[in-house]
């Protein structure tokens, strides 16, 4: 059987045109996906059963789901400042339960945006976001900027489907309809495909953005000879390209959010795009990583009013990134238990933060053995969302789509595990109050 219009549960492109051949409840062929999407759907070695250990350096022993769930609930119910982190590789339905569990235990809920586009949220709080959908950009954009992002590696079908090579309604010559500009600190594989590669000195993007804003505002006289390693002449040339666009789009990534300036880089990039709207139509959009990290921002915002890093310890949602983000909490040694689900803190936090996780009980809900599993006391395997479970996910541009189920498995879903933990936490808390 070939299942058509399958969505890929890996990156924020959320490609929805895959075809997957399933025989005897096994995926045997995957068509149209990129190498990463194919690898994700084909799958890897699974954690076979729930496991527990008291000492993080000892071997795990297999336990029943009930035992692992009850012990997880006990740890969370008794902890004073639990961190509930991850969420981005799950479906919206389980994220909603995650917010509920956080409320029940008075914990902090944070997602992978914390080490990805968290600063973009702060930049958007400051300046708003002139944006649109990938469909609009695919059909209209004639000047395409990639700033500090490398879609050839991180979003392999992005350039083919949405931004560079695809033919759109007003971009019907495909690649020839568009001018592509890449800003980066190194000549990436994406830069190799650009019309213009602009090499920025590491950590100097903010200055380059400011220089471009000055030029767009007609104040080239205040721009020094070189800014961020780029000559004034080159900056003027790029500014002219941007101003000449009928429809310009800036796609940005970790090159802005993780380097010096962090959220201020986003603030400045949004300002540049806002000001370019005096000359043509211009939009900007973050290149979101996990396929449903955008979904978490939406679910968390409608449940709590905030997109991530929400502290429920006061009984109402409190949000102050820099105080309530995972790495701040870990580095201040405030956390006394960590619940890591649908994201791998162990593989993507600085070693010094992870070492703090090494001192507290860690509960890891994941289909696969991750770096967090190495730090865990309790491991609970679940279904792979979007392969073994259907539900809602949000593409990087905020368009919600229904993920499909391809095969049946016996593992419980994240949502089922969360429901059971919530019920048990209520039982424990009810008994002690």
């Amino acid at each position, binding site marked *: 059987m070939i299942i058509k219009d399958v969505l890929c549960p*890996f990156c924020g492109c959320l490609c929805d045109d895959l075809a997957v051949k399933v025989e005897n409840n096994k995926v045997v062929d995957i068509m149209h996906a990129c190498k*990463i999407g194919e*690898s*994700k759907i084909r*799958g*890897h*070695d699974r954690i076979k059963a729930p496991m527990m250990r008291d000492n993080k*350096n000892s071997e795990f022993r297999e336990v029943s789901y009930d035992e692992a769930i009850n012990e997880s609930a006990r740890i969370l119910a008794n902890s004073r400042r639990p961190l509930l982190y991850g969420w981005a590789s799950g479906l919206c339905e389980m994220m909603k339960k995650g917010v509920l569990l956080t409320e029940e235990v008075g914990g902090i809920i944070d997602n992978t945006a914390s*080490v990805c586009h*968290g*600063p973009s949220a*702060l930049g958007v709080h400051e300046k708003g976001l002139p944006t649109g959908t990938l469909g609009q950009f695919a059909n209209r954009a004639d000047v395409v900027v990639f700033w500090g992002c*490398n879609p050839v*590696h*991180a979003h*392999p079908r992005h350039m083919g489907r949405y931004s560079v090579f695809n033919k759109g309604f007003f971009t019907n010559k495909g690649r020839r309809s568009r001018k592509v500009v890449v800003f980066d*600190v*190194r*000549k*990436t594989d994406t*830069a*190799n495909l650009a019309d213009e590669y602009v*090499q920025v000195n*590491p*950590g100097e993007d903010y200055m380059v953005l400011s220089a471009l804003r000055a030029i767009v505002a007609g104040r080239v006289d205040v721009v020094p000879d070189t800014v961020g390693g780029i000559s004034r002449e080159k900056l003027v040339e790029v500014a002219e390209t941007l101003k000449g666009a009928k429809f310009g789009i800036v796609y940005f990534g*970790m*090159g802005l*959010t*993780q*380097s*010096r300036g*962090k*959220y201020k880089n986003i603030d400045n990039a949004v300002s540049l795009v806002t000001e370019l709207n005096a000359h043509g139509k211009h939009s900007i959009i973050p290149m979101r990583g996990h396929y449903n990290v955008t979904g978490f921002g939406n679910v968390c915002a409608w449940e709590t009013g905030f997109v991530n890093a929400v502290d429920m310890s006061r009984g109402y949602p409190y949000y102050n*990134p*820099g105080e*309530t*983000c*995972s*790495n*701040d909490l870990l*580095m201040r040694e405030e956390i006394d238990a960590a619940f890591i689900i649908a994201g*791998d803190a*162990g*593989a*993507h*936090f*600085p*070693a*010094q933060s*992870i*070492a703090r*996780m*090494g001192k507290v009980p860690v509960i890891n809900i994941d*289909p*696969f*053995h*991750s*770096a967090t599993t*190495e*730090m865990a006391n309790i491991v609970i395997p679940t279904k792979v969302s979007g392969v073994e479970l259907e539900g809602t996910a949000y593409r990087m541009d905020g368009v919600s789509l229904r993920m499909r189920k391809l095969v049946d498995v016996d593992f419980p879903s994240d949502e089922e595990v969360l429901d059971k933990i919530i019920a048990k936490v209520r039982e424990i808390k009810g008994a002690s109050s």
Partner: protein
Amino acid sequence: MDLKATFISGRTVDQGCNLENKTSKAYFDAAGYCEMNSADAGKLCVEPGNNVKVTTDFGSVVVPLKICEGNPDGLIFIPMGPWANAVVDPNTCGCGMPGFKGIPAVVTPTGETAPTMQQLMARLK
């Protein structure tokens, strides 16, 4: 015989393909290496595949060397993951985001072996 460099981390296709395969050799091959251009490698007198030690104010890690001519002089890259994490800056400057890019680093040739993911995590517990 050491190289002063600026360190960044980031994604690669192979790192993405092995995100759910982290105990494998394939994940080590995909995320456990350090890239620099051949001029910088020449300064260190190291060949691709030789191990180098990358040290920052926040830690150090041993990984094999790869050449990438797209890197300007003095820019080194380790794919995001446990090997990069050993040397990144946990300080968030009050905005939640640690420093994963633009960290001053020193690279030296070494005869030490590169740790596996499990060995790196074992150091942290």
